[in-house]
C-alpha cells in the first residue's frame, strides 16, 4: 500500500493524450502518473458502460496517487464525441462496442505504458461492469498483462442467444488462455454476474489450474465502488480497493518508484 506520511512530497501529472489504439487508429486517453523518475508499475483502466466519465478520471488519478502509471483509454472513441452519457446511449443503441476494438485499444495502452522510461515493465488491467468483463477478456486474448482485476463484470458467462456481432464469443470460453493472475470482486446481490455465473467461472479457472482470487461481498450488488450512485456500499468498496492494491503490488512490484 502507498506509505502515506504528512511530511512526504507528492505530485502528479494528469492529462488527456492521444495514442495509437486498435489497428493503429489514434484514440484519446486519460493518463495520470506520479511525478518522479520511477520506476513505476502501470495499470490500464477500462471504463464502465455508463461511459468514459468523471468517475474513471478519478479512478485513474487514484492509481497515480498510489504510485502507478495509469491510463484510461476512451474505448468509445470511434463512436464520436459528446457528453459521456450521450456517448454511452449512442454505443448502447448501436449494439455495444466491439470486443475486437476493445482488446486492441487496451493492449495498445499497455504497450504505451511499457514504452515509457518511467515504467518498471509490469502492467495490470482493471475494469468494472462491462470493463470487468473486458479486463478478463483482454487477459485471455493477449499476453500483455501481469495481473488482471475483474470487478463485477457481467456477461463473462454468456448463453449463445445473448451473443451479438460485437460480442461474438463468451469470455468464459477463453479461460484456458488466461495469461495472468486474476482478482475478482463481486456483490452477492448482483443479477449479472449472478453468484451462479461467478461460481461457473471459478470452476472453469480451477479446471485449467489458473491463479485466481475471488471475493463475494454480502449486502452489495453491482457497482459498489460507485459513490455517486445508490449502488455504493462503503465497507465493500474500502475493502475492495485494499484487496486490489495488495494484489497489484504482489504481481506488479512496489508502486511509487520504490523498486
Amino acid at each position, binding site marked *: 500500500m502507498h506509505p502515506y506520511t504528512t511530511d512526504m512530497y507528492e505530485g502528479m501529472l494528469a492529462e488527456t493524450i492521444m495514442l495509437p489504439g486498435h489497428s493503429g487508429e489514434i484514440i484519446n486517453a486519460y493518463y495520470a502518473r506520479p511525478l518522479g523518475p520511477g520506476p513505476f508499475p502501470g495499470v490500464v483502466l477500462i471504463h*464502465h*458502460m*455508463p*461511459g468514459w466519465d468523471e468517475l474513471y478520471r478519478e479512478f485513474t488519478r487514484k492509481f497515480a496517487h498510489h504510485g502507478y502509471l495509469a491510463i484510461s483509454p476512451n474505448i468509445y472513441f470511434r*463512436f*464520436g*464525441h*459528446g*457528453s*459521456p*452519457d*450521450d*456517448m*454511452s*446511449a*449512442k454505443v*448502447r*443503441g448501436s*449494439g*455495444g462496442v466491439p470486443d475486437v476494438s476493445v482488446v486492441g485499444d487496451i493492449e495498445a495502452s499497455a504497450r504505451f505504458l511499457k514504452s515509457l522510461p518511467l515504467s518498471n515493465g509490469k502492467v495490470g488491467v482493471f475494469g468494472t*461492469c*462491462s470493463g470487468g*468483463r473486458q479486463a478478463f477478456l483482454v487477459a485471455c486474448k493477449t499476453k500483455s498483462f501481469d495481473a488482471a482485476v475483474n470487478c463485477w463484470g*457481467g*456477461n463473462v458467462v454468456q448463453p449463445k442467444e*445473448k451473443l*451479438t456481432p460485437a*460480442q461474438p464469443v463468451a469470455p468464459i470460453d477463453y479461460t484456458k488462455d488466461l495469461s495472468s493472475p486474476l482478482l475478482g470482486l463481486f456483490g452477492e446481490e*448482483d*443479477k*449479472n454476474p449472478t453468484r451462479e455465473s461467478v461460481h461457473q467461472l471459478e470452476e472453469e479457472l480451477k479446471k485449467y489450474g489458473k491463479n485466481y482470487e475471488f471475493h463475494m461481498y454480502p449486502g452489495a*450488488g*453491482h*457497482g459498489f465502488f460507485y459513490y455517486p*450512485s*445508490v*449502488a455504493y456500499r462503503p465497507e465493500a468498496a474500502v475493502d475492495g480497493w485494499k484487496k486490489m492494491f495488495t494484489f497489484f503490488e504482489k504481481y506488479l512490484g512496489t508502486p511509487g518508484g520504490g523498486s
Partner: protein
Amino acid sequence: MCTGIVETAEVSGSGKGPRGWFKLEQVNVSYDHPSDAPLEHALSIDFVNQKQGPSARVAVELSPDSARRLVKAVLGALSKAGLDINEASNCG
C-alpha cells in the same frame, strides 16, 4: 447488473433537446444502469437522430413501474383517439 438489453425501433416525429426541436429517427429502449436516476437499474428511453450527433437525444430514465404506467398511458391515449393499438407500420 450490466444487462446489454436494448430494443430499437424507427420512429417519426420531433423531439426537443438541448438545442431545440429536431427530427426523430429512432428510439432505443434499454434496461440497464441509469446515468442520473437514483436507481440501480432503469428503463431508459432515448429518442435520437444519429445524423445530428450524440447530443440530438431526448432521454428519460424510469423505474420499471413508471415504465409500465407510461406504456398504459400511451396505449390509453391511442385508444381514446380511436387508433388501433395493435398495428404499427414499419415507420409511421
